[in-house]
Every structure is written in structure tokens, then in C-alpha cells.
């Protein structure tokens, strides 16, 4: 029986040919994202902005204007209502209600209670699925913790790669991670999707996936560098990329299969999460080649791998060629 092969056994694609072009693409992506963040900013969720978010559902669809009318009379300040799709197959009509950045000095309880009462009076069958109120003090801390988490993981990964490979690889890897994180956040700014704590977890997942992909390519490069001592660096990299191409495609596909299963079947709570990671898997795969690989190519590496590097835990390749 012949097995399914999306990638031929032997490929010789010249990945490193248009690095300059891809460099520009990457830069446009990163600078564009930063520009978007500076001008449009993020649609911050209650985790980071403070305030109250209520997820409610009714069996029949109610126009948003009706929701707004009902809530306008509650006297809890400005109220935003948006519709969300319910993909859990319950046939409900769900909305997200955002109560202004409620001052938590006295707690959000009065506003939430008033809203609850008004809703169940207007729509007797309404279900209040979820209520989140976060005070300004905590939201500020959550923002800091999120930033710190991303920075620390960059640092941890950089140190590990530096120990296991060479500093050029560490720089390449971290640049590609920065690229992925910024571009993923940039897409959230572009599409104005809600950015909350789960999305920070998603960005870190993307970081984890991207580094995984990068490391596999680096590993093969190191092996080839030992094996082919005279081959130009560019060709060594191309060879490594071609050799790992089948695996790269395979793993991205299995991961994407799982992610689409989450995206389509897991309900609204993790929708944004799945979206962020799907996007991130694509950028992560791209950046492993065109940011991480290109950076190493540009920085150059030491070619004398004859003396086994004591810090590189496992040695193989070389002698067996």
C-alpha cells in the first residue's frame, strides 16, 4: 500500500534564495503590527481593561437594539452589546454585554444585580451564562504578568538554545519568536478581536510551537554542518530545510487539524484562543525558515565542529556519514 505523501521524498527547494524579499515581508509585518498597536490599539477584554462582561443567551433571537433599550434603562452607565455565535449546537442566541469600566470601589455587585433583574424581566427565558467583573487594580497586574510571562519565556528559550547550539542560533530563534508574538498580537489589533488572558496563553502557545519548529530545523542544520564541512552555509541550510520539510508539513497539519477541531466545536470560550494559535502556527512555520534561518545565515556560524562541543548534550552525525 502506498502511503499518503504530501511532500516528495526528495526535494531541493531553494528556500534561502529570496531571503531579502522575505526579510522585507517580515519587517512589514512587524512594523505594521506595531503601527496598528500604536494607532488602533487592542480591543482589551475585561481582564485587562477592568469592568464587567456578561454573557447571556435567549432561546429566540432578540435584535441588538432591544437589548440596548432594555439595558439603557438600568442606569449602569454606557452599555455595549455584541452578538456572538453559539457553536455548541444548542441553538441559542448569545450576546456579550459590556458594562462600562465599572468602578469597583463599591464592587460590581449592584450593577450586575440590576442588569440581571432587568434582563430577566424583559426576557423571562434569558440565561445568564457568565459574568466577569475585574477591578482596575487587578487588571493592571494582569497586564504586567502577561508581559512578564512572554519576556521570561523568550529569555528562557534564548538561554537554552544558546547552551545547546551557538549564540547565533539563540538570536535567530528569539527574533523569530518576537516576530511571531508581535504579528499575532497585530492581527488581534487589525481585526479588533477581544484580547484577554486566554489570548496571552495563546501567544505563549504560539511561542512554544514556533520554537519547537525552529529547533527541529536548527538541529538538522547542526548535524549537516558536522557532516558536510565544506558545503557553503546557505546550502547546508537549504538541505536541512528540505530534509525536514516533510516533517514540518506533517506536524503543522496535525496541529492545525486539532486547532480547527477546537475552533469549530469548542464553543465561544476558546474561540479567540484557537484563532490566535491557528494564525500563530502559520507564522511560526514561516518564521522558523525566514526569520530564524535567515538570521543564522546572516550572522554566520563557526564551521569547525570537529571538536565535539561539550555543552551540546547529544552528538551524532559526523562520524557516521
Amino acid at each position, binding site marked *: 500500500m502506498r*502511503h499518503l505523501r504530501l511532500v516528495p521524498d526528495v526535494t531541493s527547494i531553494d528556500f534561502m534564495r529570496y531571503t531579502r524579499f522575505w526579510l522585507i515581508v517580515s519587517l512589514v509585518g512587524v512594523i505594521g503590527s506595531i503601527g496598528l498597536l500604536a494607532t488602533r490599539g487592542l480591543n482589551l477584554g475585561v481582564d485587562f481593561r477592568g469592568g464587567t462582561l456578561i454573557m447571556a443567551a435567549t432561546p429566540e433571537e432578540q435584535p441588538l437594539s432591544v437589548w440596548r433599550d432594555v439595558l439603557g434603562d438600568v442606569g449602569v452607565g454606557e452599555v455595549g452589546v455584541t452578538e456572538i455565535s453559539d457553536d455548541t449546537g444548542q441553538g441559542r442566541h448569545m450576546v456579550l454585554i459590556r458594562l462600562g469600566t465599572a468602578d469597583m470601589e463599591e464592587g460590581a455587585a449592584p450593577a450586575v444585580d440590576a442588569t440581571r433583574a432587568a434582563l430577566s424581566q424583559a426576557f423571562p427565558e434569558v440565561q445568564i451564562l457568565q459574568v466577569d467583573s475585574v477591578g482596575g487594580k487587578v487588571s493592571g497586574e494582569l497586564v504586567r504578568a502577561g508581559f512578564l510571562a512572554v519576556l521570561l519565556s523568550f529569555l528562557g528559550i534564548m538561554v537554552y538554545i544558546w547552551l545547546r547550539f551557538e549564540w547565533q542560533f539563540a538570536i535567530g530563534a528569539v527574533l523569530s519568536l518576537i516576530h511571531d508574538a508581535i504579528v499575532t498580537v497585530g492581527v488581534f489589533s487589525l481585526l479588533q478581536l477581544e484580547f484577554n488572558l486566554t489570548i496571552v496563553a495563546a501567544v505563549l502557545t504560539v511561542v512554544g510551537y514556533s520554537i519547537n519548529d525552529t529547533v*527541529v530545523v536548527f*538541529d538538522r542544520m547542526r548535524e549537516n554542518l558536522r557532516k558536510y564541512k565544506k558545503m557553503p552555509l546557505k546550502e547546508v541550510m537549504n538541505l536541512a530545510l528540505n530534509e525536514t520539510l516533510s516533517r514540518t508539513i506533517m506536524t503543522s497539519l496535525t496541529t492545525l487539524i486539532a486547532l480547527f477541531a477546537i475552533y469549530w*466545536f469548542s464553543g465561544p470560550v476558546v474561540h479567540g484562543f484557537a484563532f490566535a494559535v491557528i494564525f500563530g502556527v502559520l507564522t511560526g512555520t514561516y518564521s522558523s525558515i525566514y526569520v530564524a534561518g535567515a538570521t543564522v545565515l546572516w550572522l554566520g556560524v563557526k564551521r569547525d565542529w570537529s571538536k565535539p562541543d561539550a555543552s551540546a548534550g*547529544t552528538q551524532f552525525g559526523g562520524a557516521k556519514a
Partner: protein
Amino acid sequence: MLQFPMWKNVAIVLVCLAGLVVAFPNLFYDRVERSNDARASLAAGAAETPELAAEAAGWPEFLPSGLVNLGLDLRGGAHVLVEVQTADVYAERLEGLWPDLRDRLRDLRDQVGTVRRLESAPDELRIRIGEPSGMAAAEEAVRAASQPVISLTGASGRDFEARAEGDVLVITLSEAEKVAIDRRTLDQSLEIIRRRVDETGTREPTIQRQGEDRILVQVPGIGSAEELLAIIGKTARLSFHPVVNRTTDAAATPGLDEVVYPSMDEDGVYYVLERRAVVTGEQLVDSQPTFDQNGLPAVSFRFNPAGGAAFGRYTADNIGKPFAIVLDGEVISAPVIQSHIPGGSGIITGSFTPEDSTRLAILLRAGALPAEIRVLEQRTIGPELGQDSIEAGRRAAVIALAAVGIYMILSYGWFGVVACVALLTNIVLIFALMTAIGATLTMPGIAGLVLTIGMAVDANVLIFERIREELKTARGPARAIQLGFEKAFGSILDANVTTLIVAVILFMLGSGPVKGFAVTLGLGILCSVFTAIYVTQMIIAGWFDWRRPKAITV
């Protein structure tokens, strides 16, 4: 060469079997949970009813009964993060120092002259003395009253400090005392909140301290965070004060040692009361919801002997005068004392609903919080959403598993089947580990699990791709398989360690659901390395020894 030594094979099989045994009760979650609950309440001394016995018997006793904890977002319930206002207690502590210091200074009247307390910020006590020349003696007398503070760091000091500013003696609490107060206040608040939540009879509440001055309360199954806050948010400080005056003037200026409190029910009515309480809620030993003689909801109370004696003495001496029942700075009611009340018990009336009286009785029984608390975060997850999330997560997991499995088998044939076995083992092991360490499964956690399904096959993909390559050059399939495993190992290790770094950082810095995601991601990585390398190699080696194929296709 390809085969592991026997002991290793046995160990691998044992680990997998143990995982299966620990994880499988999760398949019968409801039944096991109800049985566990019933057993727990029987063990706690509940009367054995047929229903309870039937539920307990719902799951055989000899089978393992550990379960993965379901997070609040899957179970439904309320989550509240509060901050204890410990600074309130500093002011109270200083307030408490005043009578003693006053007496000590008055004993030195001939040296320090008159002693008067000045208005001041709440974090200090300002005392003016008539004779500035006696300041040194005053300082000495005041310092003699301070107590040593024993702190954990060993850096002990006195509990308060005194300094002179002209003819004013300024008393402030020392840092060591503040730290000690913080800790004591938080401990007491935790204890009181725990008692109050326990009184409501909800199962498995989580009450944890967070950081310096915060408490996290999670109660599954409760209707809303607002409901929870009605129980834990109130300070519930009860006291009985003599009434000086009843007024409608909010700006009424109280005399020395008097306070003005608003009425709870009557708008615009204020009471001027003596600051000093006759008795306080601390002297209560019991409190129950009840009804007064008119059949209206009320709350009964009983004092301890000391409180009862004080209460009895006061009522005997003040028949015909009103006295006020004050809760958290509001006057519930101010009845006129009709007769001497001996025995130290009575009822509080006011315009209560039956729910109010039940709640107030719980609060009084559990005791007052030592300081006010401020809500930082409150979240409610409806039970419907939790159930939907579990269903949705299960569906996503099954679909992901099936799709990834089919894809792997199409791509790698028999080797793909082996990878599927490894993947299933991986999921079983993740559940077993989560059950064993008591980790909590959240919705992002389920997402992490599904994602693991996609990413865990990576290690197998790396190995299989490597075997394919080695088949082209190596001598014979056995050698190719062996080289495939050997050479892929470095990549697998590096790739997974870096991802593990991310999972660990997420776990350390994340909160709530995100932490749940980090747990499944991290455990997924650990288990996937084990299953992809050991389980896969064991199966393939066994198969190879058995079939001895001349050529293989991967």
C-alpha cells in the same frame, strides 16, 4: 539492539497499566463523584438513608475512585478575589492604645500637666501635654507601655513608636507591628470567610490566600458571585450602644466619645450614640433566624456569660431608654428597653426578609471580619455554560483524535497505527497524572489537551521521517529503525524542553484557567516524550522481532 532489555519493557507496560487504572474512573465521572460524595457524608456521620447508601454503592469500593478536579469554568459557580483592608486595623489598634496611654500620662500629671488627645490622621495618635518640659518623662512612660513584637524574621522591635513634636507626642505603629497585624488580619479573615462559606453548605469551596493581603474564594455550584459576596463581603460587626439622641440632621456634630450612625431602614434618620459599646458581636455564642411575636422575620442571639452579664446589668439600669443595635456602621433598630433582660439572649428585629434574617444569623454566628474587604474581581459561570463547555471539549477532542489518527495512518501505514496507540496512551497518562496530583481541568485546559493531540504526534513524525531517510542509506530495515530512533532523539529533546519552558512560565505567572492550560500542556509534553519514544519503540521492536520483515515501508 532495537529491543529494550526485559526490565525496561516491563516497566513501560506497568506505567501504562497504572495510568489506565488511575485514569479510568474519569470515564464514569458522575457516578464516581456521587458515590464519593455519599461516602464522604457517611464518613462525616450523616444518617444512613437508603438513597445515600445506594449512591455510595454506585461505584464498587475496591475500584480506584480518584477523579480529575473540574475547574469552576466547567462546573459553574462563583469566583471572587478580595483584598483585606488591613490598614483599617492599624487605626483600630492605635485607638485601643489610647485609654492605657492616657492613664499612664495622667499618673505623671505633676510633670506633664494636662493630657489631651488631638484630631489626627488615622495612622497616628497625637497627644498634647500641658508642660513641654515634661516631654522626656512622657515619652519614657509611653515607651514603657510598648510591647515587644515577635516576628518570623527575628527582627523584633516594639509594637509602637513615640516621638515628640514640640508639645505633642506622636504615636505610630512600628513596621514590625504592621506586618504582624497584616498577617493576623489575613489569617482571621480567611478563617471567618471559611466558616461563613461552610455554613452555606456548598461543596468543595476553595479559599486561598493570595499574595500579601488577598483572598481568593471559589465556590462551585453557587448561583452567582453577588450571592457569594452577600455572605463573605459583609464585615458583620455587631454592637449594642446607648442612644444619646435621634436626629434627622446628617451633619449633627457628635460630642466627645460619641458617634453618628444612619438608620438602616429609615431614610434621613440618624442616631447619635455613645462610642463605647455595651456589648459586641464578639461576645455572641449563637445566632439563629427566627420570628418575632408579630410573626416577622427576626434574628435571635445568645451572649457568652460575660456578655450576658454586661447586657443584663445595662438593661436593668436603663429601663425606658432606647438602645441601638448597630451592624457595620448602620443602626438596624433602636428599641426601648422594656424590662431587665437577664440570661443574655434576645432577638433583633428590623425590616428583614426571611433570607435577610437567615443570612444575618450566619454572619453573626461565623463572626465579624477583622477588617473590611474590597472586591477586586468577581466572576460567575452559569452551570449551563460549564456543561456545554465539557460537551464541546469532548467533541473537539474526539474529532481531533479521529482526524489526526486517520491522517497518521494514511501517511505512515502500520507505523501510523503504532503512533495512534502511543497517542491514546498519552491521553490516558495525562488524565492519570492529573488525577494523581489533583490538578484542575479547565476549558483552556481542554484546549491544551486537544492541542497536545496535534502536537504530541510530532515526536513520532520526527522518528518516522528519520526512519524513511535512513531506509535510503542504511543496511536493512532493522538498522534504519534503530538509527531513526537514535537520531531523532536530540531533536525531540530540544523541541520539547523549549516548549516545556513556556509551559512552566505560564504555570508560574498564569492565573485560574490559564494555569489549567499550562498544566495540561506541560503534562502533555512530558507524557508525549515518554509515549512517543518508549511506547512506540517497544511496540515496533516487538513487532519487528515477531515478523522479521525483509523490507518495510514507512
